[in-house]
């Protein structure tokens, strides 16, 4: 029963993302300023959203590890950080392609680009730290401390810096006036893709944690 529910859930996720992908091309209108590049929106922002979600998940489990010392929390924290980096790279690449189309260059060292680059460096250091320590308990403890502290930079780099300095990047989705300036059809596709990416993230997270659990069992035997 549980297996069937999971299978249906995954198939639903597949159809959901595929369906909204088609809707992005044939149903949602284009934003006049953005033209054909409007569609990057449905990939770029959900990828950035999953980055924040995953890194927050990593921080949450790191704190839980420090409190409870259960290796399961370390598995969750590491998996979330890896997936967070993966989606951050996806958001950076899609953003860079978008920048080429809109601003004429792939990379402009714009405040948002610079801050995302620093964020990638911060979390690349997390992976380097993990791979440098062999002893499991020590690795889990030090990585948990690092991850909990590293997350402090996430809201700062993703939300504060781009708002302080002048940036070419368009207004955030919910702009400073607190309004959602979007055509209703664009809004529907956008939030549907956001939900789809969130579902994909939790699937990847569960899968990576299960692999980590197997590796752990293998190490113990």
């Amino acid at each position, binding site marked *: 029963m549980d297996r069937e529910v999971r299978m249906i859930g*995954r198939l639903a996720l*597949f159809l959901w993302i*595929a369906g909204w*992908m*088609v809707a992005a*091309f044939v149903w949602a209108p284009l934003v006049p300023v953005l033209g054909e590049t409007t*569609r990057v929106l449905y990939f770029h922002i959900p990828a950035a959203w999953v980055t924040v979600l995953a890194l927050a998940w990593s921080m949450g489990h790191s704190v839980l590890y420090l409190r409870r010392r259960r290796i399961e929390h370390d598995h969750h924290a590491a998996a979330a950080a890896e997936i967070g980096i993966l989606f951050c790279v996806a958001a950076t690449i899609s953003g860079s392609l978008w920048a080429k189309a809109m601003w004429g260059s792939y990379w402009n060292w714009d405040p948002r680009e610079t801050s995302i680059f620093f964020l990638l460096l911060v979390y690349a250091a997390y992976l380097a730290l993990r791979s440098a320590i062999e002893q499991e308990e020590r690795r889990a403890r030090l990585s948990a401390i690092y991850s909990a502290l590293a997350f402090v930079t996430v809201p700062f780099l993703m939300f504060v810096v781009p708002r302080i300095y002048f940036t070419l990047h368009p207004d955030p989705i919910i702009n400073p006036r607190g309004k959602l300036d979007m055509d209703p059809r664009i809004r529907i596709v956008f939030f549907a893709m956001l939900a789809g990416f969130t579902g994909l993230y939790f699937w990847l997270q569960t899968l990576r944690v*299960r692999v980590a659990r197997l590796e752990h069992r293998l190490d113990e035997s």
Partner: protein
Amino acid sequence: MTGNAVVLGVSLLVWVLLFFYLWRLDRRVKELEKR
């Protein structure tokens, strides 16, 4: 429209491939968990 159809086709293909890769991985992990 042709350009859009190509981009949509490639996007769907990537999604299908990624999905089936994850699906197979999921099944493999399940097999290993049973052992």
